[in-house]
């Protein structure tokens, strides 16, 4: 069991800066994030995009902001549980919380700050009726063990890196690989795109472009997929597996079932006090929360984190007195390490 003073769910910019503000109050923090690296959306979706509204930075690349935040919180030595998503929460007798991840890692803290942003990044699922019936029965959104596809007939959908990489990789393993893409051009790395075209010429991969899988068929297991091709008859391909690889999209996920008041996919908080939710000891900060006048901005998340940790301090150290000091007066954070 990992024990800490403040458990932060979500290692995006708001979650990371929370470590800093909590650190100033000598609180230890631990972060959980479903992605394998810290930074949230900034690292996963738009690391190379510029941000113009971080005070003091006329412009900063999203990825660079994450690096700087990591540098800023380094003295406080936060713990990380990465690549795991927070699934359940239980309250202990002493009023603390135990949060368990999808991999069973347990974390205990007197307060929990949900800085979950848009939520957990999960594979984008095609809106095909009955598709869920075939999940794990032929339809996989993520390739976990390529050996599973040895000598099987595999259809892959998508035009990005992950679809192309797996097409190349599985060409040597599966008995048949078909790649279905809505356009004729691909947006992956050039050499991978070339490799796919080469494999297609060699007959190792069947390339079906200007096309889209629109239906799945089978009794209990997947038997075939129907492919709609622009300007041609629908094509039915018999296959053992279909891998729709359309990237990741965030959803609120299990946190939506934690007994918190939810409005339009966001957690309702009290912005007049300390961004508390309807459950005492659980706070929500950053893009994941909502209140009258809410703006989903990084800088608002920073502010919310700063206010929130003052309350979390009182829960972590009920007997200690909170004395507020400017970082300038402290002479930097070195004295706190």
């Amino acid at each position, binding site marked *: 069991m990992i024990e800490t003073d403040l458990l932060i769910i979500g290692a995006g910019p708001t979650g990371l800066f929370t470590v800093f503000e909590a650190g100033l109050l000598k609180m230890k923090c631990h972060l959980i994030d479903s992605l394998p690296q810290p930074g949230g959306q900034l690292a996963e979706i738009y690391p190379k995009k510029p941000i113009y509204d971080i005070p003091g930075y006329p412009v900063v690349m999203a990825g660079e902001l994450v690096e700087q935040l990591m540098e800023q919180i380094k003295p406080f030595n936060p713990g990380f549980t990465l690549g795991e998503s927070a699934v359940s929460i239980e309250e202990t007798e002493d009023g603390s919380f135990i949060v368990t991840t999808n991999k069973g890692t347990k974390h205990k803290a007197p307060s929990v700050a949900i800085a979950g942003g848009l939520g957990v990044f999960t594979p984008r699922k095609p*809106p095909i009726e009955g598709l869920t019936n075939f999940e794990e029965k032929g339809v996989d959104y993520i390739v976990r063990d390529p050996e599973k596809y040895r000598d099987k007939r595999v259809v892959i959908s*998508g035009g*990005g890196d992950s679809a192309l990489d797996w097409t190349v990789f599985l060409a040597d393993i599966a008995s048949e690989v078909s790649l279905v893409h809505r356009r004729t051009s691909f*947006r992956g790395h050039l050499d991978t795109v070339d490799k796919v075209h080469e494999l297609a010429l060699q007959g190792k991969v069947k390339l079906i472009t200007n096309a889209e899988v629109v239906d799945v068929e089978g009794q209990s297991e997947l038997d075939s997929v129907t492919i709609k091709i622009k300007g041609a008859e629908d094509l039915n391909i018999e296959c053992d597996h279909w891998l729709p690889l359309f990237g990741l*999209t965030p*959803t609120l996920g299990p946190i939506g079932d934690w007994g918190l008041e939810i409005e339009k996919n966001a957690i309702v908080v009290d912005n007049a006090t300390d961004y508390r939710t309807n459950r005492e000891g659980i706070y929500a900060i950053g893009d994941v929360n909502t209140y009258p006048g809410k703006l989903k901005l990084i800088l608002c998340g920073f502010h919310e984190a700063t206010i929130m940790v003052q309350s979390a301090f009182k829960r972590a150290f009920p007997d200690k007195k909170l004395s507020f000091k400017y970082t300038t007066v402290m002479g930097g954070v070195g004295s706190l390490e």
Partner: protein
Amino acid sequence: MDREGLRHELIAPTDMNMNLMEVCKSYELPVKGTCGGMAMCASCHCYVESEHELNEPSDDEEDMLDQAFFVEDNSRLGCQIFMKPELEGLSVRLAEVSE
């Protein structure tokens, strides 16, 4: 037109640098606009059903449409359609979104 086939008439300002996704959201239509208009989520995928001439889709938009579903020749991301007077009468239909 929304996903249930209901038609909504929207009046959009042309002097606020708004895009179609934002206009739809301001009318509380079921358009998420998850990424905030960076052409990075496809939750504002729609079909343009009138003959208006639109700005060509950027590479970013095309790439994102690759990750959307039921993409047609008239598919666009609402966040990349910017409101201007020439678009008076523009007719679009919201595309199905995945959950």
